[in-house]
């Protein structure tokens, strides 16, 4: 019977486990390993196994004597030697940070309002937040290309307004502004949902009690609602910040030359300059950054929660 049980266990967990090992875990490890290798002559990686010019057969070329010709830390030192890479990381953090902050400011009142509206409308109001999110990501980016494009009504109106006060027309497309607006647009529901899930659970009686004890509206918010909602704030921030950090399509389409992020550089290394080892270094750095942010968010979230209690 015990044998049967473990057989069933492997029949159930085996297939997905195997699939994800092959198509997620192993590729990720290979990528991590690629960061220590040299690029090949025609892009990609310098192969370990290749045709030996002497024997004309496929042979393992790497051995104890020559491993330095195949493995290196050079790709990592290159990352730190030139400041443009670190600067690009900082800029990406800045983009993702601003995006997160704007998402938070826009989502909080909305989430609060939905959480306080009558029960029968709540699901509908939340569905309305999610619905646009289900349309294709590129369509959502494209929509802003129309709006911000020089012939769009929005851009024209703004420039006409600026002309009235004597300022030269500005370009909205291909700017920091465009990148951040669209990053906010595509990530907004990620912030609203966890905030709403948190605020919905708040006990209204707490606010009544605070009011009863003489706290004013703002004080009530900062002393009660805000600290209690921090777990939701941190969850939402992580859900916005992490994907925003790795974004490449938005800056690609709307950012122009100035609006590059880490994602664009990674894409460049893999698809344009075909320098896989350095692309892998960048990916590893991005992974570390994500892990760091996730860990930081979790730590602050926990600490704050304890303080709030």
């Amino acid at each position, binding site marked *: 019977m015990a044998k049967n049980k473990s057989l069933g266990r492997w029949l159930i967990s085996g297939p997905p486990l195997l*699939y994800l090992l092959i198509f997620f875990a192993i590729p990720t490890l290979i990528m991590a390993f690629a960061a220590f290798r040299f690029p090949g002559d025609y892009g990609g990686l310098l192969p370990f196994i290749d045709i030996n010019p002497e024997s004309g057969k496929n042979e393992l070329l790497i051995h104890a004597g020559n491993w330095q010709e195949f493995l290196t830390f050079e790709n990592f030192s290159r990352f730190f030697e030139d400041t443009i890479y670190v600067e690009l990381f900082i800029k990406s953090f800045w983009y993702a940070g601003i995006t997160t902050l704007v998402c938070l400011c826009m*989502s909080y009142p909305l989430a609060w309002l939905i959480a306080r509206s009558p029960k029968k409308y709540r699901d509908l109001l939340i569905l309305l937040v999610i619905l646009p999110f289900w349309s294709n990501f590129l369509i959502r980016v494209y929509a802003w290309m129309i709006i911000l494009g020089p012939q769009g009504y929005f851009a024209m109106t703004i420039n006409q307004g600026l002309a009235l006060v004597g300022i030269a027309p500005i370009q909205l497309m291909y700017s920091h502004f465009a990148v951040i607006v669209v990053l906010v647009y595509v990530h907004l529901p990620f912030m609203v949902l966890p905030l709403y899930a948190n605020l919905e659970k708040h006990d209204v009686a707490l606010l009544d009690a605070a009011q009863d004890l003489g706290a004013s509206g703002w004080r009530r918010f900062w002393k009660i609602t805000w600290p209690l909602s921090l777990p939701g704030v941190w969850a939402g921030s992580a859900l916005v910040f992490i994907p925003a950090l790795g974004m490449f399509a938005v800056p690609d389409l709307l950012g122009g030359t100035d609006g590059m992020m880490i994602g664009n550089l990674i894409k460049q290394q893999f698809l344009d300059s075909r320098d896989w080892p350095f692309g892998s270094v960048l990916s590893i750095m991005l992974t570390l950054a994500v892990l760091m942010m996730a860990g930081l968010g979790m730590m602050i979230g926990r600490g704050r929660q304890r303080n709030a209690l």
Partner: protein
Amino acid sequence: MHSKQSKWLWAAAIFVYGFLYVPLIIVVAYSFNDSKLNAEWVGFTFKWYGLLLHNEQMLVAARNSLIIAVVTSCCATVLGTLAGLAMHKYKLRILPILVLTPIAIPEILMGVALLIFFVMLNMTLGLVSVTLAHIAFCIGFVAIVVRSRLQGMDEALVEAARDLGASPIQAFRLVTMPLIMPGIIAGALMAFTLSIDDFVITFFTAGAGASTLPLQIYSMIRIAVTPEVNAISTLLMLLTLTLILIASKVAPSALRAK
């Protein structure tokens, strides 16, 4: 709550809803505009939809997307359901990590890792590589929906079935399976939409071999903004909306999982 505060809140909420919907409405509206530019409104027309039907590249891309999405959805549903069951039933540490990280990390990381992997295996990038990649990231979403459905199920039901004479397999087939079916269907629909919508991972794993609708849209909007894109976008939105409506009928709770 003071009514003044309430007014501000409502204003903020209406602003956010407007922010969410106006861009999409613009896309739909311009798809009926009789002008090559997405600027002035000239007149109503269906011609962009007509053009779409004669756009060979677009039709191929649509066919590819559909094939990939159907295969992905089938495979990911089976594997994701198994993963959901396993996560619910067994305390295997590694499985949740493997299932959930692909969802949590930026998509680009999975994209490049799979690119290296497929090239190292000497695989020709194309429909197959894209489908394999899509399955890998859809498993997690299906697993989450199925697991939440299992968590909502009364454990005693399976025990009752056993108690009344059902073998473990009969109990699964007659009780567990019908009860988690809405979750499985919702998961399948979700995998389908995720696959048909995916851009980033497809971008890295498709190579020159296979264009999909998102890739097609991407290459079109990189060059120029044309009303044809509006038309295909509108159609895609309609498709997703239909799928969501079906999903909400089958399993209302599933909508919140994404």
